[in-house]
């Protein structure tokens, strides 16, 4: 097991290196650079532009250096914990992202928990009452949530919340609480504003989760040990929870890998519509304006989390299910 973990960690390094090259190249692919974006913005707002100055800006930001040199500089600094400098915000990337991290994690956790709270009971019910009216009805609602475009739902719910409950449009709290110390009123305001994003982001995930729980549990419920247990008169609830449910949770653990980056990135498009101060909109804006170190370091950060997440879920699965450990370990 320990050897397995070590080889897995060893494999992470080339993976991440490859990811970093891909990320950096793609960010640089569109024509122009940040200075171009900046000039374009100045022209659009009617300010005059000194093209000589643009050249100085390029030199100051190091954009005149060849790409390979910029890449090497960025990646070596990244490894040493310096994530670079955001042109747009004129601050170190770690500071820009760090400012938004807590709110992002909060929104993501609320969403994930909501998804679980809704999906688990429904999934179990659907599996145990397969092809019943309840199964069809609940699945229908779940799929409805999956099929509705999130941004549209966000707009409608935001409007309704403003109209009937007086919750201010967008944001994660009323404006007067921003940058204030935590207080009861602030918490209340945050919770009020958390409802819409949680529901909107949660609805899309719920349906998928329901279907997965249902499918995995159905597989398990048809196994002979379950039938035997039932035949021997084990109470129905215990016959469900004791083994079949636990066995069907493998997929759930495997999910942790993808969960980790989601917690940090938040739902980008919905966050823009809802004007949440999370990291999602930050990333998109950075990509649009070619704020390359902000975009690059953030994507790299997500890549690292994905790789770590996959590793964690693999190890957890190994502990949870001896079959995986044996076959997986032997092959590697």
């Amino acid at each position: 097991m320990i050897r397995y973990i070590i080889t897995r960690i060893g494999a992470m390094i080339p993976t991440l290196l490859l990811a970093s090259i891909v990320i950096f190249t793609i960010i640089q692919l569109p024509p122009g650079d940040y200075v171009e974006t900046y000039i374009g913005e100045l022209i659009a707002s009617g300010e005059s532009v000194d093209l000589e100055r643009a050249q100085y800006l390029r030199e100051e930001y190091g954009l005149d250096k060849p790409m390979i040199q910029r890449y090497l500089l960025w990646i070596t600094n990244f490894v040493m914990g310096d994530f670079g400098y955001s042109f747009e915000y004129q601050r170190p990337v770690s500071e820009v992202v760090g400012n938004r991290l807590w709110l992002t994690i909060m929104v993501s956790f609320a969403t994930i928990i909501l998804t679980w709270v809704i999906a688990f009971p429904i999934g179990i019910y659907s599996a145990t009452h397969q092809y019943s009216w309840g199964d069809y009805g609940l699945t229908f609602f779940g799929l409805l949530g999956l099929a509705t475009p999130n941004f549209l739902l966000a707009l409608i719910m935001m409007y309704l919340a403003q109209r009937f409950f007086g919750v201010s449009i967008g944001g994660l709290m009323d404006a007067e609480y921003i940058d204030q110390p935590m207080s009861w009123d602030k918490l209340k305001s945050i919770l009020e504003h958390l409802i819409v994003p949680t529901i909107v982001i949660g609805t899309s995930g719920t349906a998928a989760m329901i279907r997965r729980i249902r499918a995995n549990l159905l597989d398990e419920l048809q196994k002979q040990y379950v039938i035997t247990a039932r035949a021997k008169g084990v109470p129905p609830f215990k016959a469900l929870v004791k083994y079949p449910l636990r066995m069907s949770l493998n997929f759930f653990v495997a999910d942790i890998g993808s969960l980790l980056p989601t917690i940090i990135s938040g739902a980008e498009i919905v966050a823009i519509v809802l004007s949440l101060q999370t990291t999602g909109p930050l990333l998109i804006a950075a990509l649009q304006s070619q704020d390359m170190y902000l975009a690059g370091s953030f994507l790299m950060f997500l890549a690292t989390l994905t790789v770590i997440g996959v590793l964690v879920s693999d190890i957890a699965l190994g502990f949870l299910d001896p079959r995986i450990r044996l076959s997986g370990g032997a092959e590697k």
Partner: protein
Amino acid sequence: MTRSFRKMISTSAALILMAGSAFAGPPEEPRVLNFDNLDKEVGKSGGSIKMLMSKPKDVRWMTVYSGARLVAYDETFQLKPDILKAIDNADNKSFTLHLRKGHQWSDGQPFTTEDFRYWWEDVAQNEALSKGGPPREMLVEGKLPKVEIIDSHTIRYSWDSVNPLFMTALAGARPMYIYMPAHYLKQFHEKYGDADKLAGLVESEKVQNWSSLHKRFGRQYRPENPEMPTLQAWMNTTRLPSERIVFKRNPNYHRVDPAGTQLPYLDEVVLNMASSSIIAAKAGTGESDLQARYVRFDNYSFLKQGTEEGGYNVLLWPSGRGSEMTLLPNLNTKDEGFRKAFQDVRVRRALSMGMDRGEINEAIFFGLGREAANSVLPSSPLYKDEYAEAWIEYDVDQANQLLDEAGFDKRDGDGVRLLPDGRPFEIIVETAGEQSQETDILQLITDHWKDIGVKLFVKPSQRDILRGRVSNGETVMSTWQGLNRGLATPEMNPEELAPVSPIQAQWPTWGNHYASKGASGEQPTLPEVARLSELYSNWRSAANYDEQAAIWDEMLSIFTDQVYTIGIVSGGLQPIVVSKKLRNVPEEGIWAFEPTLYFGQYLPDTFWLEE
């Protein structure tokens, strides 16, 4: 005994403290505003208003809105001293600046000629801080001015020949700052600062060297640094980035109202950040007390609906651009057939006369715009009807005749004219693709131009990409807004009318020739364009207002008669959301970056809240 002793100590301590930072308040010689000709009322101090912004960079709009400049445009667009007590202008060659006695920075330190000296000697001429030397407005024929510091409140800048750019640069929406708070910034300057402390700061702020540090903490136009003192009406108190940026009133502001109350009236201006797409929706629920940025004309009916519940009014101010949208035929395009065609003035005139501006105005602007060529607006002192009406009449017959005369009389089976090389006269118009409005207008023009045998195709792209293509001469025709200085006065720089920059989509190669001082690009080949260049350099050496006005006149006349840019409709409307409680906001105004500084011209420091 002990009590009075203690009192004595505390009094003297207070006195010492006050001596350190003089009493807060306006200068001994403040600028007293005259409200009679401004249609304003004396208000009450206090209160806080909210505005919505989208990016931390938007703090710069506070500098524009606040509008304190060394010299500023008054309501008739004449330059008048504002932060300065007086400015003596000797034939545009020598300028003597007089500061107000007792004027202080927002942190209570005196504002003196030392602040000007510091900028001139230690910043503008410092190799590390200003690569390439002082701003171009400070140079005449490449030569620096003579700077004489006469006393702590008087300073003189003089050049051998005239410098018409100096005053307008000081009054600009993004002004040229020829002063800096020396007492604050010296700590970041290699020459004055403590070397160890500087090294420590460079380390902790993760910048390359002291000059980056100085630049970062010393921004005046974009007030990002809450510790940086200012002369504007409000000072930033929030460290960026933040979702809520609070500006507090500057206790040492230099303007007072007629009753002697120091301005600004409002204690606080709060900028709340929201993504730009929902700002109109938020403004529509009354979440902003004064909003124009990120609100567009197509939001107007939505905003109007919410006036009762939101407690606000919506004003409509015409924009200050020469035209809402212009077509820019590229006289330097790489496509030889079209280059020859567009260099023929008859073709440009025909294209202009072949569009039905009346229909565009009705369909897109609800008939509220003015059908006009790309020129100055009626409120500008330079306005003449002949400029606005040059070649804008919808006359299909004359347009057809002009095109026939220009040699495009052959047509293909569909009635589309042919270029001499046999290709059909099909123009691809490239747009920045940001507003659907552009595409809608172009769609209408496509129909109009069918009647004159010209086909139009729209190619939306992206702002930065379009700019690159324009500079390389790859576009045949593009669209952009009209003249930025639609409210020009003779003192303003007429650079938009002459080829000066590769950004100008109608003549990028000729513009590049000027911008690169002849290193790249080509000299204008058309005599009229060459005349514009000549007039522009004449303007730069014009000694007085009348000469400047004469030059502007001739330039405008050539520019509009030659139809280098095809203006469509001017005076598009900017909705402005104003809380019902906010007073002194004029019903009528013009929404422009320069010279009105958006709200700046209408003195936001006099806006006040009624309970």
